[in-house]
């Protein structure tokens, strides 16, 4: 027990990162389950992080109020984002949502209330590792419980063949809106946790680089598997730290691992075990 505490004291920042990245990976995984390559998770995270930080620090709201408001705002933005991109699919949707992320970043960079490029300082350490993993557990349990739900089936069917899905009476537009709203809420949780465990926010924290990392977690983990996404986030967060002695070259490792997975294990980590019954063919 003592050894574990020593280990945690030494690596608690990494432990926190793994949990937050796992939540972000879940946010993208539910989009990919519906066939939506929507790459706005970093923006959703940033929106919630800034709203929570501003309401609590600047306006002295209690975190118990600021956090739900921030998560709800992120979910609403996610749902609304689904409307203008309704007709976009695949790489076109990816480009549009990356563009949305850049808009959010630039707005954060130019607003006074966010601290602009200087960043937002003085966020109190109100959350801890326990909160991160409790949130991850709750989100994971919700997704696991819903894996055989009609909505999960509607997502899978929308991914498989959108026209045929409409042909059986599924409103695929609504599936997209709900999916992106849920992705916004989940990434929003990650944003709040990030803000109150890192104490400082800059627009660069939510830039394309983070989105790229989230996508890599899901590809490594297995694109439609929530459990795989969590595993992918853990592996790809630990890997650069484990190879810190390589200095600037350690980021090359991520690229090599990504290539190896794409070439030799396109199902990702999830391909190593069977997932939900109606996802087995993907595993």
């Amino acid at each position, binding site marked *: 027990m003592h050894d574990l505490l020593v280990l945690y004291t030494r690596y608690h920042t990494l432990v926190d990162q793994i949990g937050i990245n796992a939540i972000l990976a879940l946010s993208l995984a539910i989009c990919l389950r519906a066939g939506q390559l929507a790459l706005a998770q970093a923006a959703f995270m940033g929106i919630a992080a800034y709203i929570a930080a501003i309401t609590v620090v600047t306006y002295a709201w209690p975190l118990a109020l600021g956090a739900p408001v921030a998560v709800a705002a992120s979910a609403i933005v996610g749902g609304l984002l689904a409307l203008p991109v309704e007709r976009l699919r695949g790489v076109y949707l990816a480009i549009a949502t990356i563009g949305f992320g850049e808009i959010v970043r630039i707005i954060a960079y130019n607003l006074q209330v966010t601290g602009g490029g200087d960043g937002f300082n003085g966020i109190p350490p109100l959350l801890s590792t326990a909160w991160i993993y409790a949130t991850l557990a709750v989100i994971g349990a919700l997704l696991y419980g819903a894996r055989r739900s009609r909505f999960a089936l509607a997502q*899978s069917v929308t991914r*498989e063949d959108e026209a045929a899905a409409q*042909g*059986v*009476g599924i*409103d695929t537009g609504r599936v997209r809106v709900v999916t992106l709203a849920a992705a916004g809420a989940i990434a929003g949780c990650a944003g709040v946790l990030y803000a109150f465990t890192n104490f400082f926010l800059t627009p660069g924290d939510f830039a394309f680089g983070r989105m790229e990392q989230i996508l890599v977690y899901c590809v490594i983990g297995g694109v439609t598997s929530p459990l795989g996404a969590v595993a992918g986030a853990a592996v790809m967060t630990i890997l650069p730290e484990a190879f810190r002695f390589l200095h600037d070259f350690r980021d090359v490792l991520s690229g090599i691992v990504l290539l190896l997975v794409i070439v030799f294990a396109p199902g990702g980590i999830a391909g190593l075990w069977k997932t939900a019954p109606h996802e087995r063919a993907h595993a």
Partner: protein
Amino acid sequence: MNALTLDGVVVRFGGVDALGGVSLRVDPGSIVGLIGPNGAGKTTLVNATTGMVPLAGGSVVLGGARLDGLRPFAIARRGVARTYQNIRLFGALSVQDNIRAGAIRRHDTTSQEIRALLERVGLRDLDGAAVASGLAYGDQRRVEIARALAGSPAILMLDEPAAGMNPRETSELAGLVRAIAQDGIGVLLIEHDVGLVRAVCDRVVVLNFGIVLAEGTPDAVARDPAVVEAYLGAAV
């Protein structure tokens, strides 16, 4: 009476009238055959009825309610189900999840209901957990019909269901189509297999170049000189 009525349906692709004012009616429990040469507009008519292509004119009515202008999912929810010329199962999903998807707008299908639907389409021994894309072609056709029936439709549009089937399978399909109609579902059967059409259809509509060339009983249509000349090539 949930009859499907198409009145003067026009579908235009650019400057081409794919359907030039087609009218037809499918009553509950009846089987209407829709035949015509390739490019006559048969699948376009199904796509127009199910909202997959917009109408440039005319109307589609089911049980007194207009369907034209609605989105495909809304039309499906009102009771119009279909199968596709090129099978469009959710290939990576299991057979039972395909059938669950067919009923998703009403309720969550029980395993007993799934088993009953598979038996109804002649797939009593099929493993419901099997991945749909791995099934034999004829079985995929039947699962697609089971998926369409799962939603308890008022109208079922079958787009060349016998394509790729052997004579025994086609004969079994004929029995299945008759049984579906006996349950009160109106069936629009698009088919090149004239033998199947004559065996099961109450009425036949012949399309050519997007217009109705002839309409009547299978025997009357088969004797129509215009049909013989334009489509059949010889008396059947």
